[in-house]
């Protein structure tokens, strides 16, 4: 069941969420949980920065825009993977702004039938407007859910 993609949908911001200020305790707890050992990720003080993947904890408040194709079965799906491009490090006191947009939308047919891939791009910036991370998150859903 192929779907048409409204080109206006791609790249249009559908959510903007702000988090923070980031605390040293949050950075250290995250770094410990992923086994980091370098003091720059673990010791409170002026040199403390976030572990490189810290930003994956941030997402949009609204999961998807309202105008995705109705053939996508949103009840059945999973997180298929992520690509992270890193910018400047996150530091204690930073405020993180997350802008979300549909970056890609396409279908593929595999062994279990037709699937839709929805790639959400999260652009994360700090309070100075510097990019801290660009995250493309690929979600996979069955097709044939709606009318």
């Amino acid at each position: 069941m192929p779907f048409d993609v409204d080109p206006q949908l791609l790249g249009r911001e559908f959510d903007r969420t702000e988090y923070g200020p980031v605390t040293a305790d949050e950075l250290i707890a995250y770094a410990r949980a992923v086994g980091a050992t370098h003091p720059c990720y673990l010791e409170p003080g002026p040199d403390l920065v976030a572990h490189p993947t810290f930003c994956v904890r941030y997402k949009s408040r609204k999961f998807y825009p309202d105008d995705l194709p109705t053939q996508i079965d949103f009840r059945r799906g999973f997180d298929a993977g992520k690509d992270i491009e890193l910018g400047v490090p996150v530091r204690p006191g930073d405020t993180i702004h997350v802008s979300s947009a549909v970056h890609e939308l396409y279908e593929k047919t595999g062994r279990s039938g037709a699937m839709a891939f929805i790639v959400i791009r999260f652009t994360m910036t700090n309070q100075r407007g510097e990019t801290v991370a660009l995250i493309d998150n690929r979600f996979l859903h069955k097709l044939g859910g709606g009318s």
Partner: protein
Amino acid sequence: MTRFDDVFEGDELPGREFLLEKDQVRDYARAAHQWAPRFTDDEGARREGLPGMITPGNMSMGLLATMLEAWAGPGSLRRLGTTFRGLLLPGRTIRLCGAVTQRHDETRSVEVDVWIENDEGERVVAGTATLRLR
């Protein structure tokens, strides 16, 4: 810390093999605001149709990033992309692995294939990374 001049295409990174404790996954779920039964509780995960609690895909990226920077030094990771191919179950031994696939002299950076194997040798997470070396 690994220097660019000492790296060659085909080099294998010193991987890491360890028992991924369920409590470490719970610590991650708490720290990453992913506290949900599937990541914290075997019974809750089974109620969702899973074989037991699973490791968040985001945590597997974090573990790979830690392995990469243990090799190249903090701040070296510039990009990491992964595909979550299967379930990474805690309470079992896992292996974090990597191999250099390309060197870029002009930027002193390298491309690396990365993956995580479960205790049956299956690659349940696979991806690529870019690191800038000194």
